């Protein structure tokens, strides 16, 4: 006879811990699952930011978090994509927008027509054919647009002030019945593949059917599990330091985050309602923290406000993020740099997998195998997406970037890039966070041009091809022109309160 899981203890901090606790309680609270957070001291500082992909809006919807309220509560700004600058030598920046795949013609993707037209002298950038990218460039957004008959569906992510975001989620989690215990973890008692109890710093002992480790790189629980291990991805992702700072608010607010490469890594500018969050990821072998801090104002053209915080980055993953009755979520499971706004997405993926595979039997958690395999595939695909940016750089004579161009790739990415160069087709695997249009956007943006276009393009007469492309451009221009400016879509920010924190 199986024994249901009725108690869950989440050990961790910040968004990973609170989103997980909130999500689990929200999903299973009514079925009698008690969720407790053993809260570790926050690693966030007031300058931190959470950039996110559009999928977060979906999670918020499931958790009953209203989008406009969240934006108002967290100095949030809608984000239609990321603008990549200085990655490809002299060529122009591009916007990777979160569009759905634009509808093609005759079942052939738009990209194929563009590749052909480009060969014939078309000088219009690929991202100009993206509704989302055009909206981003013009700072316009329509939140409730009825785009059902539109040829692509723009989607938006967000930037949130990290401290405010955690406060908001924590408050909602507590309201949903999550209980909290403060203090560090002392001993972790493991029998076989099972945590029987943990002892807190103050001596209290906590038992649970299921433990979740959302402590980040520390892996407070996971590192006690038999068979635990961490596999580094630093051979592909060489940035090992991250500096977070803050600058003045941008005016007008851009509807994208700016991701600019520089000599030793990249710098992200994330617009918020009251400031601009700055995140630099870099290779400490090329630049010290002090040097990074000193160059930041020059590289960003911003005067820094408040503190700047440096921390370590160690990309990699746990091949077995679920062992016995202990599940790793967020950075504990998959550690990636914040490029492509993936950090919260990784938390979300772990959470949604854990909800789907919430163990049916507290004594036999066979779900671990499915969770581990699914999360690994998901993480590898995201990792490949990040690596692609580095690999395709065209910054010459800078050792950091030269090395990135020459590194050997994971076979999955190598295959994807070969197929794309041959034909502009994207090989999608199971569990991809980014879809064909996302991959095409960054491949083309970084200059990976298909050698040949799909012969099916020539099913359409040449004049029709040209006319259709023109029609798309004028359609996009018209649509975007009718949309309101980003700023008008933001409610006035509420006074910020950290009272709960």
């Amino acid at each position, binding site marked *: 006879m*199986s024994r*249901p*899981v009725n108690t869950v203890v989440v050990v961790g901090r910040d968004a990973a811990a609170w989103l997980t606790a909130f999500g689990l309680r929200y*999903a*299973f609270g*009514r*079925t009698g*699952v008690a969720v407790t957070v053993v809260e570790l001291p926050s690693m966030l500082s007031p300058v931190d930011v959470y950039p996110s992909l559009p999928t977060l809006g979906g999670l918020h919807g499931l958790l009953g978090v209203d989008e406009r309220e969240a934006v108002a509560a967290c100095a949030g700004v809608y984000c239609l994509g990321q603008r990549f600058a200085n990655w490809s030598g002299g060529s122009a920046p591009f916007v990777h927008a979160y569009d759905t795949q634009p509808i093609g013609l005759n079942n052939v993707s738009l990209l194929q027509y563009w590749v052909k037209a480009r060969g014939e002298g078309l000088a219009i950038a690929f991202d100009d054919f993206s509704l989302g990218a055009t909206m981003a460039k013009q700072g316009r957004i329509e939140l409730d647009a009825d785009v059902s008959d539109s040829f692509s569906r723009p989607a938006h992510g967000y930037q949130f002030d990290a401290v405010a975001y955690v406060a908001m989620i924590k408050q909602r989690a507590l309201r949903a019945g999550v209980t909290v215990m403060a203090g560090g973890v002392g001993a972790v008692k493991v029998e076989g593949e099972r945590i029987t109890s943990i002892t807190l710093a103050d001596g209290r002992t906590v038992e649970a059917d299921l433990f979740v480790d959302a402590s980040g790189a520390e892996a407070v629980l996971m590192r006690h599990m038999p068979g635990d291990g961490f596999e580094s991805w630093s051979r592909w992702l060489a940035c090992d330091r991250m500096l977070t700072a803050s600058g003045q608010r941008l005016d007008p607010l851009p509807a994208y985050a700016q991701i600019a490469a520089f000599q030793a890594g990249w710098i992200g500018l994330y617009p918020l309602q009251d400031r601009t969050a700055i995140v630099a990821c870099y290779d400490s072998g090329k630049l010290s923290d002090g040097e990074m801090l000193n160059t930041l104002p020059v590289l960003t053209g911003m005067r820094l406000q408040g503190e700047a915080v440096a921390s370590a980055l160690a990309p990699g993953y746990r091949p077995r993020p679920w062992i016995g009755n202990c599940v790793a979520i967020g950075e504990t499971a998959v550690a990636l740099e914040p490029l492509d706004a993936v950090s919260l997405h990784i938390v979300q993926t772990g959470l949604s997998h854990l*909800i*789907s*595979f*919430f163990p*049916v*039997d507290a004594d*036999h958690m*066979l*779900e671990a*195998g*499915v969770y581990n395999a699914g999360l690994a595939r998901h993480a590898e695909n995201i990792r490949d997406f990040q690596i692609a940016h580095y690999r395709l750089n065209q910054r010459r004579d800078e050792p950091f970037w030269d090395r990135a161009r020459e590194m050997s790739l994971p076979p999955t990415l190598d*295959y994807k890039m*070969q*197929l794309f*160069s*041959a*034909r502009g*087709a994207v*090989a*999608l*695997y*199971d569990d*991809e966070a980014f879809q064909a249009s996302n991959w095409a956007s960054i491949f083309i943006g970084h200059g990976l041009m298909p050698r*040949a276009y*799909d*012969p*099916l393009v*020539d*099913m359409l007469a040449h004049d029709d091809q040209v006319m259709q492309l023109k029609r798309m451009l004028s359609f996009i221009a018209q649509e975007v022109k009718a949309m309101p400016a980003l700023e008008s879509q933001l409610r006035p920010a509420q006074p910020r309160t950290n009272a709960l924190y």
Partner: protein
Amino acid sequence: MAKPLDVVIVGGGTSGWMSAAALVGVLKPNICRVRLIESDEIGIVGVGEATLPQMRDFNEAIGIIEPEMMAASNATFKLGIDFRDWGFKGSRYNHPFGKHGQPLSGVAFHHHWVKARQNGHAFDLDDFSYPIVACRTNRFEFPAKDPKVINATYSYAYQFDAHLYSKYLRGFAEARGVVRTEGMVVDVTRDGESGNVASVTLKSGEVVAGDLFIDCSGFRSLLMGQTLEVPFEDWSKWLPCDRAWAVPCERSEDFHPYTRSTAREGGWQWRIPLQHRTGNGYCFSSSFISEDEAHATLLANLDGKAQADPRMLRFKAGRRTHSWFKNCIGIGLASGFLEPLESTSIYLVQVAVMNLIRLFPRVPFDPVLAAEFNRLVDVEYDRVRDFLILHYHANSRDDSELWRYTRNMEVPDSLKHKLKIFKHRGHIEAYKDGLFAPSSWLAVLVGQGVVPDGYERLADNMEFTDLIGRMEELRGRIQTRVDAMPSHDDFVRDYCPSPSAVTAPPARVEVGA
């Protein structure tokens, strides 16, 4: 604009003519020119007379008119497969083209079904499948367009005379410019440098050169196997059937909108009703039963007069390690074989042809495009293989050696994991590419007797009495709507009557039901 490629298809039959028709149906002559070589001396295998719903996409993509094609091939409609005696003798289930029930509180229906069952309400899962309920009284009509109504929850396929279907496709293809050459291929010439196939020589002495060759020569695998020596991966340890006797018999009363598969001592017997006759066959393993025994069993189990002597087909389960090698693409039996248990033969041809069109090359051989083609085809083969093995493996028959063997054999890890997690908690993984969808796995798993021990906890968010009420309401709604459907017989006669159709006695009730 590049010059069009010259495509040479070696072999006719279903795969040859599907390939030809699709290439000229979709691609214009400025992209490829198609020539097909076939010999009247070589018989056509044509085992697959039942299809999958995906076939409709194929027909639509190339521009085939459904009622015309159906009338020309004596076709009937198919809503699923009726499996008898598979899990154990006397058992019966249907693998329908549709979902069971609908999600409640965001949780897949079968989790609720498991919960109800564990709490004293042992509903029959089949009662919640619209097409299964329609099959019980031999009814058919097209699914509704409005996705919200209950009679939109299914899809359909065809059962037809594959030989007539290829004849129909031949007319379609020739009208669009395919050049058919009658002749036997007696020699193949390869390019010394690239190793590509350069030309084939016919018995008449004619040399046919081409840029791209499609091998549709069937089991002989003339180009892929004999010329290019692409190795064959043998899967017969999991799928031991290696023979089939096939025989048509007179059409009988039971004109069902589904294919029937009855497990027998050494394999299984199919029954496929067409407009002019009923197709039958016994697919068996010669390691477990003799050809003579199978022959006798088949003839003893016909419900109409046999129209010919049974024909013997020999095969082996497995596939070539490459479906696209050099400038040659194997389509159909030349690239692999999986027994017709789930009507996948024509589907696998379709997948190959449509992927070829999607990845159609500009030069005779582009290794990257070939690799992607092979990746996509391999995924399909692997997944169909696992699904077929499931039928054999999850059984509790103890009456013959075949069933004991397949129950105890080691199955591929991919299937082992699938069975384990389904048994534990009813989870079925959905994949991006390839057959079969979770609803199909569910039907066969439960049908073969694998019932989950647990269900998704989220299902507990629903009040139990509310759940039972919703289930009863759904079951009633399905039955009520099905009762208003026309019979399969009437529908076929009205929509796509074949000139050679035989009128059967107007029975509506299934014999032996």
